[in-house]
């Protein structure tokens, strides 16, 4: 079993503090949902874990099986087993999806032990079929001209090809129609199991109808303010966030406001 431990994480962007002490522990074989209204720091948490260049961790720690994640470069974090399905994946001209994925897979292997082309193509084809993707997309330039839905599927394709220990899904459901949402969820559910844990960040309970979380956390003002089981997500769907704000005496839930 692997464990990702986030302790008292403070993160700033351009000198402005966004996260103000996040605590979260995720084990493999668990799916955690992080919910909350806009502007409460959810995506910042995702980006800080992966090491986005614009986000500065001012204090706190992130450890993966006792290893200091914050001391690692972005590629080392990925090699250690972290994956972030991004809300806005970059487009990269001239680099095909297939070449990119093969580089990513080989970056985890020793020189001389690269994945064989045949094996790679077999795996890629079967996963693309599973995600109901057009096989031509392997030869298209990375995310270039992809629709919103295609980009999200492509993130899940990478997730399935790279088989990380922990996947953070940053609003993977935004902009998806119901069919695409089902396909994306199918991919994540297939990953579920002993060696895999996930942090699913979303605005909407809808995604959690397809991916049942083990734990649900609510973020406000740059902190996790409430945690519970799947029933918490259902209550949020039914009643919204107001009751939590009342319970905790929060007037404005966005970052920059103090309780």
């Amino acid at each position: 079993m692997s464990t990702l431990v986030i302790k008292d994480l403070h993160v700033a962007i351009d000198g402005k503090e966004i996260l103000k002490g996040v605590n979260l522990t995720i084990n493999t074989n668990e799916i955690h949902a992080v919910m909350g209204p806009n502007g409460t720091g959810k995506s910042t948490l995702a980006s800080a874990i992966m090491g986005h260049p614009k986000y500065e961790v001012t204090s706190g720690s992130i450890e993966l099986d006792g290893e200091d994640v914050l001391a690692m470069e972005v590629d080392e974090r990925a090699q250690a087993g972290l994956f972030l399905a991004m809300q806005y994946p970059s487009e990269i001209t001239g680099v095909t999806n297939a070449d990119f994925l093969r580089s990513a897979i080989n970056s985890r292997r020793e020189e001389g032990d690269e994945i064989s082309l045949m094996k790679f193509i077999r795996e890629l084809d079967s996963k693309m079929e599973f995600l109901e993707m057009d096989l031509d997309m392997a030869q298209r330039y990375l995310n270039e001209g992809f629709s919103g839905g295609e980009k999200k599927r492509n993130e899940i394709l990478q997730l399935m090809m790279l088989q990380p220990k922990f996947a953070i899904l940053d609003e993977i459901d935004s902009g998806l129609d119901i069919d695409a949402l089902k396909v994306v969820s199918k991919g994540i559910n297939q990953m579920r199991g002993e060696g895999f844990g996930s942090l699913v960040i979303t605005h909407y309970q809808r995604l959690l109808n397809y991916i049942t979380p083990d734990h649900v956390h609510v973020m406000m003002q740059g902190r996790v303010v409430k945690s519970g089981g799947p029933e918490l997500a259902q209550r949020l769907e039914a009643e919204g966030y107001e009751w939590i704000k009342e319970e905790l005496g929060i007037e404005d839930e966005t970052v920059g406001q103090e309780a």
Partner: protein
Amino acid sequence: MTVETKLALTEQDIRSFSEGKQEPSWMTELRLKAFGQLETLPMPTPDKTKITNWNFTEFPVHTVESSKFTSLAELPEEVKAVVNAEQQNIYIQHNNTPAFLSLSEELKAKGVILTDIYTAIREHSALVQQYFMTDGVKVTEHKLTALHAALLNGGVFLYVPKNVVIEEPIQVIYLHDDKTASLFNHTLLVADENSSVTYVENYLSTVDHAEGLANIVTEVIAKDNSRVTFGTVDVLAEGFTTYVNRRGVTSRDAVLEWALGMMNDGDTISENTTHLVGDNSEGHVKMVVVGRGKQKQNFTTKVIHWGKHTEGQILKHGVMKDEASSIFNGIGKIEYGATKSNAEQESRVLMLSEKARGDANPILLIDEDDVTAGHAASVGRVDPLQLYYLMSRGISQHEAERLVIHGFLAPVVNELPIEGVKKQLTEVIERKVR
């Protein structure tokens, strides 16, 4: 201000050289006339690059003698790497010496001519005279074109007769491995009516440093309804001051496509102009450049629309590192009467260091109302978010940068028609951006 041309050569030297090559009198006269005009003709004035202090006229020696090759197996490894073992139609020049020639019996039977420029001037005198510096580059354009004509010391002639379609690419290699050599090479390609050909030339220095000059002129004459794809990879060593002029002229319905890999390590002035003379003809230019060290380069690409319904496209991608500086001038010119023509261009420069300079200048000059035109230009750095994205999948920063740079240049690299040359260009890019 006129620049003194201190040539060590005299009129008599040029006459003797021409006679030594048994050139017909028209060529001797052309050389001598050009020589006589050197003093009065002005230097070219590439926009935004000051070349008054560049040496275009002093060089150690006019010609050097180098070995010939009796088979492709004898070629140096660096050359073998870019040649297909089965390559049937190939000309190799070793410094200034015509060193190897092979043309398939099938193409010979169809009347295709592929030969070194001296032999062409001698044995196909009338044909060469008709096209040599007449419709394309003029001897008197400026001092460097005249110098080229006077001192011509190499090159190739390719003639594709009417209705002949050549499927396999024709390959020409200019091997440079003598640091004292200077290259006054002339490539003359004439594609007659309804013909089709793919031609790739390769300037390859295998010495690290050069002391000579490169004054290169290429003329492509694409006659009615012909189709010419002209690819090049120039990898001339540091030390060369290069003037390279590649010019095309298209007749009615002709299509001329350029794929130019400009990988010189020395200072370079490159002029690439396509005259779309015939109605409904097309000119497409794709160019990649990598600049490194302290080299200064100027790439001026022009497509001039004379005929109606002509289509011109320029696509240039440059990567600048170290203290290299490059000017990318793109000019789409539509003359009065060239109705329904379309001039498009795009220049992108990627800078890899603080001290590198890149300047993209798109220019549209339009003297006709009923046309369409467009341009796009950008100069920027590697996007940190792209690197972050790639690295978030486990790819190292170095490899991520490599992918972004190759990706940036891919639209042009992928256009090169010979696999070996494409691979070579990829490897040169790899070496230069490392």
